[in-house]
């Protein structure tokens, strides 16, 4: 399609492992097509050359964990026409949100020789807690296909196809036998959002919940089944729910219920 000018794309990093940004570089076959459609204006993982803002589309990776980042995300928002958060850190606070359940100052005092140089917020929070987010792309890491879908949808002004239904639908479509029913393996698939293509069950593992809670997660019922039928303990549930999306509302509440019972 002919455009007056290519939209400017920026990729931003906050507290994260860079894995989701790398999903963009991972689009090896499509990278030239992306570069053909957008001007990659700010993407430090790919190039030191930075084009000044404002930007048409900002992809934001990572969570907010420091006062400095809390200010910086405001600048990013102001410089971005459309802001899309990518990955569990940006959409739910990430694995580093485990600290939200404890006193971060205690960790700081134990881990660092000079705690006074550490300026950390009490909680690791998703980007949407700080600024308006146009679209959230889930996953730890995000799926390359879904990222391409979001980019295509942005370029042509349509809604991205990223269903919020359960992983089970993907599992059944690909014909994978349910690991929970057939093997008694604990699986978070029924309460987790689709998007990964039901990767883990296809390799005989239960779902780890990388894509966060699905649209209508009934964690109470699933947890009760794990406990009565799969002999899971409160600690097992706590550990299963407190991973990459530990601070996402439904997972957080369910894990807190089992934390209290422990």
């Amino acid at each position: 399609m002919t455009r007056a000018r290519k939209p400017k794309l920026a990729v931003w990093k906050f507290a994260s492992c860079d894995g989701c940004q790398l999903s963009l570089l991972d689009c090896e076959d499509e990278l030239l097509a992306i570069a053909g459609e957008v001007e990659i204006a700010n993407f430090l993982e790919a190039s030191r050359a930075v084009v000044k803002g404002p930007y048409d589309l900002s992809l934001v990776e990572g969570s907010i964990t420091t006062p400095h980042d809390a200010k910086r995300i405001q600048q990013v928002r102001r410089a971005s026409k459309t802001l899309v958060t990518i990955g569990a850190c940006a959409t739910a606070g990430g694995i580093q949100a485990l600290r939200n359940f404890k006193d971060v100052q205690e960790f700081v005092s134990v881990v660092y020789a000079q705690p006074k140089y550490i300026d950390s917020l009490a909680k690791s929070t998703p980007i949407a807690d700080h600024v308006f987010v146009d679209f959230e792309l889930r996953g730890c890491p995000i799926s390359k296909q879904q990222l391409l879908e979001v980019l295509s949808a942005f370029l042509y002004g349509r809604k991205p196809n990223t269903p919020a239904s359960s992983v089970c639908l993907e599992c059944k479509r690909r014909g994978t036998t349910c690991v929970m029913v057939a093997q008694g393996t604990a699986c978070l698939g029924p309460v987790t959002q689709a998007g990964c293509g039901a990767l883990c069950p296809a390799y005989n593992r239960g779902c780890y919940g990388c894509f966060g809670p699905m649209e209508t997660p009934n964690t109470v019922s699933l947890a009760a089944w794990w406990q009565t039928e799969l002999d899971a303990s409160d600690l097992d549930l706590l550990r299963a729910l407190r991973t990459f999306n530990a601070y996402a509302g439904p997972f957080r509440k369910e894990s807190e219920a089992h934390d209290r019972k422990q």
Partner: protein
Amino acid sequence: MPVQLLDWEALEEFFTALKRRGFTLIGPQLQDGAIVYDQLEKPEDLPLGWQDVQDKGSYRLHQRDDEAAFGYVVGPHSWKRFLHPPSLRLWRAKRSESGFDLQEEALKDPKYAFIGVRACELSAIEIQNKVFLGGSYTDPHYRARRQGAFIVAVNCTQAGGNCFCASMGTGPKVETGFDLALTEVLAPSRHYFTVEVGSEQGAELLKEIPHQEASQQEIATAQQLVATAAGQMGRELDNSGLKEILYASYDHPRWDEIAERCLSCGNCTMVCPTCFCTTVEDVTDLSGQEAERLRHWDSCFSIDFSYIHGGSVRASGKARYRQWLTHKLASWIDQFGSSGCVGCGRCITWCPVGIDITAEATAIRNSQAVTGVKTKGTRHVQADH
């Protein structure tokens, strides 16, 4: 045509004859701790000596003390995935100077030979025939796949823990809709199948392989095995007046109680051999030069499924489960002329939290009998899907 007899040893020639006619054989085999349907090459690929033990939310394989090839009931797959594929591209479009060119997906007839179709599954195919081929709007993809298929049915000689085909009048004996129907018999020194011929095509194929007419004794033995299965049903469902009862139960408190357990994950609809709902998804490529429309299995348990202007019309888990069960057991009758349930028990087995459709329908029936809810004046659930 009288009942015929096929020895186990002739099964290989049977498979070869099907292949010679260009069929791709699809049948039961062991994969990841379950008996699933996939491409089959030789009789030894069948799940010899295995059987499934099923309960609410549970499926386990156990070794049998014989070498039965069809000694299981039904697994996580159904033939639906071959006749009505989980994902299908409907068309592609390419941008042109004047607009765009549309390229419809070519109809595929993969010429499947389904090996081991059970009575409940034949009923499910019959129901999907009505859904996809009845009425004004038919599905050409389904038609191509269904018309080309060769069906080798197998009578159940034992029932599973979640089976209730006897209640639904759909089994365990196959009645119609097959090319050939086998009953497996494991006599002390002999492994054979009695064979009923259901079509011209079936009769023609049988001519190409060694067989003989079955004796009265052999026929009686096979019939006895099927009769045994009929008496072994793990579950039952009383269908009398069920449609009226469910229509009158829109506000029944049981729906709230089920919603506390239901995960809205959609597994029941995916494994159900009659559930047919799909969603379509339009995608564009990065360059904006190409677009395509894809069709995927969808579920009435997802929010998007019932999304219309302003929101989802079935926003609660209660509304979604009520819709599914009421459609399956009641409004389906008004829509397609039969119940949408064939009693295969898949939704009970593959529900991750073991919700049992027979128990829920029975609970609603029983509590209605006590409270005597009136039919008149209550809201009816629309027959939709």
